[in-house]
């Protein structure tokens, strides 16, 4: 705690120091660098346009949800989805977290449920622990839980895709929910997921993933990153352009696996690959904001880099596998996704090549030309975006704590930029060398509890 506060204090001093120095340390001569100015203006303009679109549209997702909720209440269509739901928990060396995840699911308010744990070539006691838990559960608890069935399978071939496909082959549910085995699932999550499938057009839904372990600085950085990216998912959902259903929380109508096949066994980000195929087939994906799942983020910077390397490499491979999704004229493909969101994603990666140096570049420009507007504007934009998201997010409980981080948000994101930059460089390097990326296995700490995570998030009573 003291270490984290010291870092925050240091970042505050750095922010104030940098802004102060821009105003105080003026150079001897007044230079003019039109090329530097051009680079900054073009770079910043694209960024502003991108964030304007996302931040303007995202809040209207909540309006749509509130409006449709009111319409359903008026028409008395408030009955829950009734079909069977199969929850798949692929687990590789998850002896610490998997039982917490199962316990969370057993507390679920949705009872027409089966839980399928797929042990994927674990070298620890995952399988043994789950089997032991199932035995005890079958003897004592099953009757109280309205006969929620728990099955544990073993998949010897390493790879999450293999594990999930095995789970799908035995699943009896009409909705398949995939959740990581290191997650905590609040009681209403499965019900909220299932209710999105009352609309027959909805084929898949992506859950609202939150980082559960915020004790370390890396945890806080990931928490803020997830807060931003899932805020932007609202915009993607409105535009019908969700192209990533993360493995931590995703729900699918069973028939899509019959139509487009199961998870890829070769792509290291089988979740992105599957989402791309769903979009390619022109099926509807929505964002289930009320289906909250807490996951355990990486606890060290090295683990975070490994995770981001896998994400970036997987995304690159998926983009290269489906070039026809870019600037597609096909009528079943969402034009916004094909002509705007995917090119922006590519631009985002290109921008990442420069972003690490961009802030230093802008600072030097400001210092040399005495034109501080771009530098100060950048800090104002990031700080304000931070504040807006925190103030308007109805789920954030401890707003003040997060708001205190807003002025140093641009520096916190600099840590994540460094990690992403590192991952990007390694991605291209490993791709060129044709190196295989393994599913990262980091040391689990099982660091969060139900009470700890729920004290940060607001769950409305009828949520």
């Amino acid at each position, binding site marked *: 705690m003291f270490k984290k506060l010291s870092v925050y204090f240091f970042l505050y001093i750095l922010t104030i120091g940098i802004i102060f120095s821009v105003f105080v340390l003026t150079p001897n001569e007044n230079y003019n660098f039109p090329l530097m100015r051009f680079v900054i203006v073009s770079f910043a303009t694209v960024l502003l346009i991108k964030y304007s679109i996302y931040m303007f549209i995202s809040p209207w997702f909540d309006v749509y949800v509130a409006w449709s909720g009111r319409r359903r209440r008026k028409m008395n269509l408030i009955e829950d989805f009734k079909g069977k739901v199969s929850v798949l928990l692929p687990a590789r060396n998850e002896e610490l977290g998997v039982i917490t995840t199962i316990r969370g699911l057993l507390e679920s308010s949705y009872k027409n449920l089966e839980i399928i744990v797929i042990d994927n070539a674990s070298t620890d006691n995952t399988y043994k622990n789950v089997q032991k838990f199932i035995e005890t559960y079958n003897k004592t608890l099953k009757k109280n839980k309205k006969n929620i069935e728990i099955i544990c399978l073993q998949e010897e071939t390493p790879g999450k895709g293999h594990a999930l496909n095995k789970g799908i082959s035995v699943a009896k549910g009409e909705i398949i929910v995939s959740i990581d085995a290191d997650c905590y699932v609040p009681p209403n999550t499965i019900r909220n997921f299932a209710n999105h499938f009352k609309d027959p057009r909805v084929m898949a839904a992506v859950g609202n993933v939150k980082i559960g372990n915020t004790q370390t600085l890396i945890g806080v950085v990931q928490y803020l990153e997830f807060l931003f990216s899932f805020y932007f998912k609202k915009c993607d959902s409105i535009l019908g352009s969700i192209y990533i259903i993360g493995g931590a929380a995703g729900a699918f109508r069973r028939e899509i696996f019959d139509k487009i096949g199961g998870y890829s066994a070769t792509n290291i980000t089988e979740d992105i690959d599957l989402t791309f195929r769903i979009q390619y087939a022109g099926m509807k994906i929505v964002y289930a904001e009320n289906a909250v799942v807490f996951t355990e983020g990486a606890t060290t910077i090295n683990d975070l880099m490994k995770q981001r390397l896998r994400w970036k490499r997987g995304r690159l491979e998926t983009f290269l596998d489906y070039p026809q999704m870019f600037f597609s004229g096909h009528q079943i493909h969402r034009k916004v996704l094909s002509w705007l969101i995917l090119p922006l994603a590519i631009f985002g990666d290109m921008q990442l090549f420069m972003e690490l140096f961009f802030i230093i570049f802008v600072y030097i420009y400001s210092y040399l030309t005495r034109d501080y507007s771009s530098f100060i504007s950048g800090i104002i934009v990031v700080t304000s975006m931070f504040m807006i998201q925190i103030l308007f997010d109805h789920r954030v409980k*401890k707003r003040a704590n997060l708001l205190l981080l807003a002025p140093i948000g641009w520096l916190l994101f600099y840590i994540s930029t460094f990690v992403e930059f590192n991952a990007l460089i390694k991605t291209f390097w490993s791709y060129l060398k044709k190196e295989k990326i393994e599913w990262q296995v980091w040391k689990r700490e099982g660091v969060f509890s139900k009470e700890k995570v729920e004290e940060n998030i607001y769950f409305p009573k009828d949520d």
Partner: protein
Amino acid sequence: MKPNILKIIESLFALIMAVLLLTLFYLFFYPNINSLAYRWVAAFLSVIILSNLGARFLVNYFNRDKL
């Protein structure tokens, strides 16, 4: 931190946001601002703050029977 202190910090930030919005409007319409960056930022922030405020108002309106 005590809850009332947290509330004060929260309100303070909301106040900063309101002042920021007014300043942005001022910056945006002030004729003698010659910095392109400030104009862009003013426009960007005004639009997204108004969008968020409008959306929040409508969410509360549609949820009025639940409140």
